[in-house]
């Protein structure tokens, strides 16, 4: 037994693994909570688009020698604002607006990055993510941004809930629907920046969508869905880092695949539960009293 315990404990004796697991957990928690709104509104595409857009900001900040997180946040926020503006005009469908704007923003990032003769490791770590390379400064920044995002969700809980559930009713009650929707995009933008260094541009979407989708399968209310999503996110972060440590594979990919495995498990579980209920219903010979 001590062998197993030692094996469980061993990775966390290393400083870079300690920082890595903290960063991965921070990113997972925030992304899981915000991801619930993305999944419920059926805008998974935006969870892919905003991290890409954040990259252009990171690249610009890199060239200018400014803070990369601030650059990423500005890039994602501006993109979110433009998408919201285009979609609201009604001339374009929402996902068309997203498609046009985020590719342009990403191309701008690539263009800026190509001004340097070679991509440097620093910039690359944002594309593919390198959770084991985060420093304490990164972690403090992630915690600060994450705290702000979660506080805003708690503060505007009722508005976010009704606008996500029934925007028509929200408008009829006098809730500023456009403003709340724009604010939600801003929250997704900030979350992308938090998760960028942990899992990289390409995989942030998975952290936003997969845990939340798992929560939707299992919960009966939004707080329940968020609790499940956070649990799945945390489990994926820790499990993924174990896999990365012992199998020597990319931590970000391992985290995402761990989340996918948990989603699959939940899907099978909910299917089985539904089937059992149907069988019990048939056996009882009709609707129960």
């Amino acid at each position, binding site marked *: 037994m001590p062998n197993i315990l030692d094996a469980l404990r061993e990775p966390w004796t290393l400083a870079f693994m300690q920082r890595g697991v903290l960063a991965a957990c921070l990113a997972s928690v925030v992304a899981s909570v915000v991801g619930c709104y993305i999944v*419920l509104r059926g805008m998974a595409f935006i969870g892919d688009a905003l991290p890409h857009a954040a990259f252009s900001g990171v690249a610009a900040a890199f060239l200018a020698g400014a803070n990369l997180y601030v650059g990423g946040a500005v890039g994602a926020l501006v993109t979110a604002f433009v998408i919201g503006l285009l979609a609201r005009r009604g001339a374009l469908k929402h996902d068309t607006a997203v498609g046009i704007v985020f590719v342009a923003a990403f191309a701008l990032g690539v263009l800026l990055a190509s001004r340097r003769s070679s991509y440097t490791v620093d910039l690359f770590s944002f594309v593919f993510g390198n959770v084991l390379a985060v420093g304490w400064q990164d972690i403090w920044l992630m915690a600060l941004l994450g705290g702000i995002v979660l506080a805003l969700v708690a*503060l*505007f*809980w*009722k*508005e976010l*809930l*009704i606008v*996500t*559930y*029934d925007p*028509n*009713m*929200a*408008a*009829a*009650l*006098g*809730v500023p629907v456009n403003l709340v929707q724009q604010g939600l995009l801003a929250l997704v933008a900030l979350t992308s920046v938090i998760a960028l260094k942990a899992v990289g541009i390409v995989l942030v979407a998975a952290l936003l969508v997969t845990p939340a989708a798992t929560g*939707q399968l299992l*919960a*009966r*209310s*939004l707080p*329940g*869905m968020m609790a499940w999503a956070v649990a799945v996110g945390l489990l994926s972060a820790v499990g993924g880092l174990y896999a990365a440590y012992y199998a020597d594979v990319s931590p970000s990919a391992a985290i995402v695949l761990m989340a996918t495995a948990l989603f699959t498990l939940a899907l099978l579980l909910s299917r089985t539960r539904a089937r059992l209920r149907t069988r019990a219903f048939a056996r009882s010979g009709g609707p129960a009293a």
Partner: protein
Amino acid sequence: MGAETPALRVEGLWTGYDGRPALEDVTFSIERGCLAGLVGPNGSGKSTLLRTILGLQRPWRGQVWVFGGRPERRRLGYTPQTESIDWAFPITVFEVALMGRYGHLGLLRRPGKRDRQVAWQALERVGMADKARRRIQELSGGEQRRTLIARALAQEAELLLLDEPFAGLDAPVQHDLLHLFQDLAAEGKTLLVATHDLSCVATHFDHAVFLNRRVIAFGRLEEVLREDVLQETFQRHLLLLSRGGQIYAEHP
């Protein structure tokens, strides 16, 4: 009754989409405490009219008065068409009813004890209190309508605008819902129910507004349920049969 300000008055209302009118010079009024049908075929502008009264659609021209004044969101309850709602959303019946209170709360304030009480009473009123903890996904069609009506009642609105509440319901469930509407009207609420189901209106409603982009007729049912009105409202969408002084209508 004539001296009393009507619950709803619409005058010379025009609106539409992309420069094309959906409603043309719509004028009518509805007395307080009555169960009124807003009748017309699909695409006649019923939903647009309700949305304009609610302030969700901007009028090009014309005016709306609710209880003699500008439409106040608090005094207007609304239930949208059930298709427009995501029934897979993880939310309970009680939480939906509680949303009716949001308009009274303003930004940042959370529902308090009284709000919960009002939401609970609304659920009791529509017979959904025993299902308050259910996820909305588990509801039947009739229960879905009742939940949305409870939300409108939780607003403590005096005028309820209901968009196609009978669509897709079996006859017995429709009847239960009709009885609920009649009871609410008897308690002093005013209900405007958009529907293309003529038989429901003909047998149970006090008033009707016949709409096909324009108002064809409005008023007490016995005054407006005439062959020419029906012909003009439904045009090719209705089969009329006159026999022994009675008109029989059917949707082909």
